[in-house]
């Protein structure tokens, strides 16, 4: 389904949904930082900047309660967290580099054992993607086969038009349902040209070649060079739309508390540290190798997908300037 919506009607749509009790998550400023967060009013939305963190939090929060416990004498009572309590959500204004990571994450959270915390949020969320008109030096979505207008992961996709408003295209029943429920706010496609899209400057990687090289080079001097300066802060994983490693911890007192699933990062030394003191990844280069391998080989081996969408966030936040795009480009060139 293709439609047009004016800027004013879009604001109206979001305000109606907020008034109806739908959790509308969209980019907004929080103390000077753009983040995907629940809106109180459509007017708070800021779509001209890439949020500092990705949209994965809408399904996979930084910190998530998975149960509570209470102790009395020798007895323990455990209370389940019912995923049914998750609210209906509209995830709006999602950049293609963020939206496209969401179906990639579906694979790991739904294979074999089903993680209902992630999956129930997925079922209850409609994703509205927004074509990207701003790119910076760190962006490289085109290098991993995506684009500023990639609709992967979006139920409804908006493209900003010359002269205002958006071209709307649906990609799922959820997207159509959203338009159908508010049809008076949408009109026939205007035929106006799209605003110029962002143009990331990075050379395209050949992902097949990258994987072919990784298949054969678990041991390689490249790893030492790539990550000798890594300080293991984990920031790259936390801002990444596709990283999904987590820890399970109890937070509370001996009497009562909550078991939580918290974000974790393969860059942390303790991530793989055994109780015996042995650590299979006993150095930052080995941990960084795992990061690259997981993104461009292991996830592909297991699920046939790449765990990187080229959003460039890890490049922007790295305190020591590690450039994943540069490293992957180097790998791509090594495999001739």
């Amino acid at each position, binding site marked *: 389904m293709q439609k047009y919506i004016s800027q004013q009607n879009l604001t109206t749509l979001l305000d109606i949904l907020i008034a109806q009790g739908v959790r509308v998550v969209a980019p907004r400023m929080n103390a000077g930082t753009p983040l995907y967060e629940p809106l109180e009013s459509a007017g708070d939305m800021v779509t001209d900047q890439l949020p500092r963190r990705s949209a994965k939090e809408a399904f996979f929060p930084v910190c998530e309660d*998975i*149960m509570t*416990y209470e*102790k009395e004498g*020798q*007895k*323990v009572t*455990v209370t*389940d*967290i019912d*995923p049914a309590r998750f609210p209906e959500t509209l995830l709006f204004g999602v950049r293609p580099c963020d939206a496209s990571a969401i179906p990639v994450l579906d694979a*790991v*959270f739904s*294979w*074999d*054992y*089903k*993680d*209902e*915390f992630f999956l129930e949020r997925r079922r209850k969320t409609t994703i509205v993607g927004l074509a990207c008109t701003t790119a910076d030096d760190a962006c490289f979505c085109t290098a991993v086969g995506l684009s500023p207008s990639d609709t992967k992961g979006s139920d409804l996709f908006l493209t900003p038009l010359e002269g205002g408003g958006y071209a709307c295209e649906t990609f799922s029943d959820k997207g159509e349902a959203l338009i159908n429920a508010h049809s008076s706010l949408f009109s026939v496609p205007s035929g106006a040209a799209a605003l110029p899209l962002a143009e990331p400057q990075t050379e395209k990687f050949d992902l097949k070649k990258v994987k072919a090289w990784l298949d054969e080079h*678990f*041991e390689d001097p490249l790893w030492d060079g790539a990550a000798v300066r890594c300080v293991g802060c984990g920031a790259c994983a936390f801002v990444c739309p596709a990283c*999904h*490693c*987590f*820890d*399970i*911890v*109890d937070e*509370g*007192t*001996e*009497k009562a*508390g909550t*078991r939580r*699933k918290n974000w*974790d990062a*393969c860059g942390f030394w303790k*991530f*793989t*540290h*055994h*109780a*015996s003191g*042995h650590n*299979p*990844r006993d150095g930052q280069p*080995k941990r960084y190798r*795992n990061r690259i*391998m*997981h993104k461009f*080989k*292991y996830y592909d*081996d*297991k699920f046939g997908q790449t765990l990187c969408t080229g959003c460039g966030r890890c490049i922007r936040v790295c305190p020591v300037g590690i450039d994943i795009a540069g490293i992957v480009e180097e790998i791509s060139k090594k495999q001739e």
Partner: protein
Amino acid sequence: MCDHTNKNIYLPYLTTVEEVIDETPDVRTLRLVFQDEKVRDNFSFRAGQFAEYSAFGAGESTFCIASSPTRAGYIECSFRSVGRVTEELRRLEVGDTMGVRGPYGNSYPVESFYGKNLVFVAGGIALPPLRTLIWNCLDLRDKFGDITIVYGARTEADLVYKHELKEWQERSDVRLVKTVDPGGNGPAWDGSVGFVPTILGEAAPSAENTIALVCGPPIMIKFTLPVLEKLGFTDEQVYTTLENRMKCGLGKCGRCNVGNVYVCKDGPVFTAKQLKEMPMEF
């Protein structure tokens, strides 16, 4: 098998500590009984599988299920107190409540061992992942040929399951070779003195129609595999279990992988052949 009907895959079963056994000054075994009668009746697992054990308030730890699947009604775990969770688990007394999630992972292909001789090789705290299988096989004794157990630890005090070692030693249908590292023996020690790989070489079990099951610290594995090879074992005849750090046990949290192999899903039981195909990341 796992309760796939439970929507929250992270929710543990509640168990009651039925027995506490001190194996060494810092290794303890807990016998656990499921509180829910239905779970108690239906919980089943295979030798080699592991579980996530929780001390509420401290968190979860990963250990193998150390008891045999042939012994219904309870499970056992053995652990060394080294961190926050295991120290908390050590504080549990008989009657206390503990959480268990599982069973997870693959298992030993026990049925394919029927009619074969078995050689168990273990070092230190690594006996529990083999003990589950040892009892599994001893409880079905007539299905197997000769059973040899080579077990060693640094010192006499570090040997776990001492009461069972005695039992195995006394059985005529088991050959137990127990050893301690040089200097680890007291005056009354009636076993061998030497490192496990050396003692295994001396015991020289025949490789013919035999499966070897090896579990120990990485350094022991490293020196044991060549000994087995010299005895004529092929890599397909040798099994081991890997014990990487885990959190979810469900193939999601992303830390237990060795290359693209997820120990929690593809393992923890691997043949030496599979082990040799993996990158050196364990």
